[in-house]
């Protein structure tokens, strides 16, 4: 019984990391049909945001609030990744709607650039750049509508970008001068240390669980609930679902599909940032951290059925539990005296990397029977 509970918890812990990472992808890929291979790098940005926030909270001014930096960084990571995602949508992806393979290649290019960016640009100036992006993208929309409708609006836009750039440079050099760790570019991995209240273990029904794992489960839970509520209860959520079902009809009925695209992509990317916070709690953060998750995320989304959040949830926990069962060789401890060839096979797959082999193979076999995942979308199109 205890063993089963152990396995279940480990599985849920693995699955929740997968889920929070795949959630953003489920939105971007599932609802918009956009293949974003830079999703992993958006996660990486979220993880680096956590790192930067942590260092900034060590400054004397913010020291008293140090323990809450992880909460703050969740919101910051959402904003940072979301803004980078919006920029990506506005500049590249928008031109490529309807040609998914091209999107795939272009976003791979973006992911390479982002990886090299964190390697060769000091994080302080990277922060400055992101801040100026945030201001530049959002300041114009806060102007009163009178200005927006005037002919000179583009001057306002232009000057707000200049203001944004100046602020970015200022904050960049400010951070760079006050936090020495951020002032030099480095390709080395960095470590996020959890605040004291998150270290140690909690005992639940006789088994000890690390608190960081619990924190990740909580983050995942909140993200899933928030995104479900947003999609099903809010007006924009309704518009997003409408555009997903029938883009042209929604356009005819007066929904701004352009805005819907930006919001959907922004939220999906933002969720990648939140996933980055979770990932940063698990191990060290490096430029390649996103690449470890991206294929797994796609498998989760495909397995769950594209455009279905429930499917994504079930698929990630299913994969998580299976990974634990296979990777830790738990079947052996449940059934110790099984015949030799079988136990040999199980031992063969009882490592992390071999468990991955097994899981992917199982998914491919599963897709032989249900090619469209657990919860397929219904339709009568030839193309589907």
């Amino acid at each position: 019984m205890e063993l089963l509970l152990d396995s279940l918890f480990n599985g849920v812990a693995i699955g929740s990391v997968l889920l929070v990472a795949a959630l953003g992808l489920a939105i971007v890929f599932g609802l918009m049909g956009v293949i974003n291979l830079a999703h992993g790098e958006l996660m990486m940005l979220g993880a680096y945001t956590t790192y930067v926030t942590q260092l900034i909270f060590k400054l004397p001014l913010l020291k008293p609030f140090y323990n809450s930096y992880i909460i703050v960084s969740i919101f910051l990571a959402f904003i940072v990744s979301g803004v980078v995602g919006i920029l990506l949508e506005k500049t590249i992806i928008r031109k490529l709607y309807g040609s998914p393979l091209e999107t795939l290649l272009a976003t791979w290019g973006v992911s390479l650039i982002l990886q090299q960016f964190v390697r060769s640009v000091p994080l302080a100036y990277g922060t400055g750049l992101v801040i100026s992006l945030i201001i530049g993208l959002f300041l114009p929309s806060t102007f009163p509508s009178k200005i927006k409708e005037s002919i000179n609006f583009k001057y306002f836009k232009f000057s707000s970008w200049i203001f944004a750039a100046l602020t970015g440079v200022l904050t960049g050099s400010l951070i760079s001068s006050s936090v020495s760790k951020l002032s030099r570019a480095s390709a080395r991995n960095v470590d996020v240390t959890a605040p004291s209240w998150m270290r140690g273990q909690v005992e639940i029904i006789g088994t000890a669980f690390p608190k960081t794992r619990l924190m990740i489960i909580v983050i995942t839970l909140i993200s899933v609930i928030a995104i479900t509520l947003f999609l099903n209860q809010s007006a924009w959520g309704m518009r997003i679902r409408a555009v997903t079902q029938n883009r042209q009809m929604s356009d005819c009925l007066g929904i701004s599909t352009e805005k819907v695209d930006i919001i959907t992509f922004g939220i999906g990317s933002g969720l990648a940032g939140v996933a980055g916070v979770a990932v940063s709690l698990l191990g060290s953060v490096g430029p390649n951290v996103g690449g470890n998750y991206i294929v797994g995320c796609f498998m989760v989304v495909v397995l769950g059925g594209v455009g279905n959040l429930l499917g994504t949830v079930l698929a990630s926990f299913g994969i998580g539990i299976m990974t634990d069962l296979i990777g830790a060789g738990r079947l052996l401890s449940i059934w110790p005296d099984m015949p030799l060839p079988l136990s040999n096979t199980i031992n063969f797959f009882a490592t992390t990397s071999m468990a991955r082999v097994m899981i992917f193979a199982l998914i491919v076999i599963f897709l032989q029977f249900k090619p469209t995942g657990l919860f397929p979308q219904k339709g009568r199109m030839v193309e589907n």
Partner: protein
Amino acid sequence: MSLSKIKFDKKIVLSFWIILIALIIAAPTILPVFRLNLLGRYLSLSIVALGVDLIWGYTGLLSLGQGIFFALGGYCAAMYLQITSSSEFPNNIPEFFALYGVEKLPFFWEPFRSPVFTFFAIWIIPALVAGLIGFLVFRNRIKGVYFSILTQASLLVFFNFFNGQQKLINGTNGLKTDVTQLFGQMVGSESMQRIFFWITAILVIAAWFFAKWVVKGRFGNILIGIRDDEPRVRFTGYNPVIFKTIIFSIAGGLAGISGALYTVQSGIVSPQFMTVPFSIEMVIWVAVGGRGTLLGAILGAVFINYAKSLVSEALPASWMFIQGGLFILVVTALPEGVLGWIQGDGPRNLLQRFGLKRKIETYPSLEVNNKEGNNE
């Protein structure tokens, strides 16, 4: 008039070939060994690019897993080389086995004692694996991005398997070939490398003619039909699954040959050949060169890799930026690649922009229809 329609004089074609062959023969004397070796490697990579062009450029299947077949070919060659030069090691098995305490050769190594078997294995094993993966995927009408994701997942499966199995194939360290013997000669030696360069050059030309033959005629037309409108091909009475499986396994076989040639020239085969970035890079060679133009794939592979080594020598950090920029640029600005742009309307449009050539005016609806057709 577009370039593709220009009929070259037979004499020009002949002299082109003579110059090319002369260059290939003379290359080892002109180039220093290091550069020759690099050129040989890049030429061998252009064979896998030809395969990518066949499946992506002509059939519309974007595979992100060509690294599997590339590495399989490389492993076949390396296993043969290791096993034939293992006579002085304990138990007559390759040296690395001793590190892990393995005393008996794993069963799947046995057939690689035979050079004939290896010769066929290098391209048949990758082709069979590709055919199997392809058949399983195509049978379910999985296509487009789902196909790409599944091939990428398979790539990870193979990578993790080869990476984790120290006792079978030396895991993450890979198999070295440069200190092994082939027909009494050291594989890494200068004279052997020269021979490998010539073999590679000949095989690239052979592969090019083979690919040209494949896409010619009815078979090629069906491939293009599948790319442009698969349901229509199906409704016309063809079974796309068969054609896709065949072309995918052809590409796999080409990748295997390419991998074997690359392995003997780079001196090692390792699971690094099966990493995700490498397989996507193969796609970008084709995309830059011009998908749907076989020559473009070859030129793209050679030139991009050459540029990569030049840039990485001068400014190591900037190659990732350049490569990322290339991906974005090619997709957004040059979807047909460089060669496709030259062969298509590119130069004419450029001349028009500078007012050097008169615009061709057709009935507007023709152009609109054309655009709609392309959007699919």
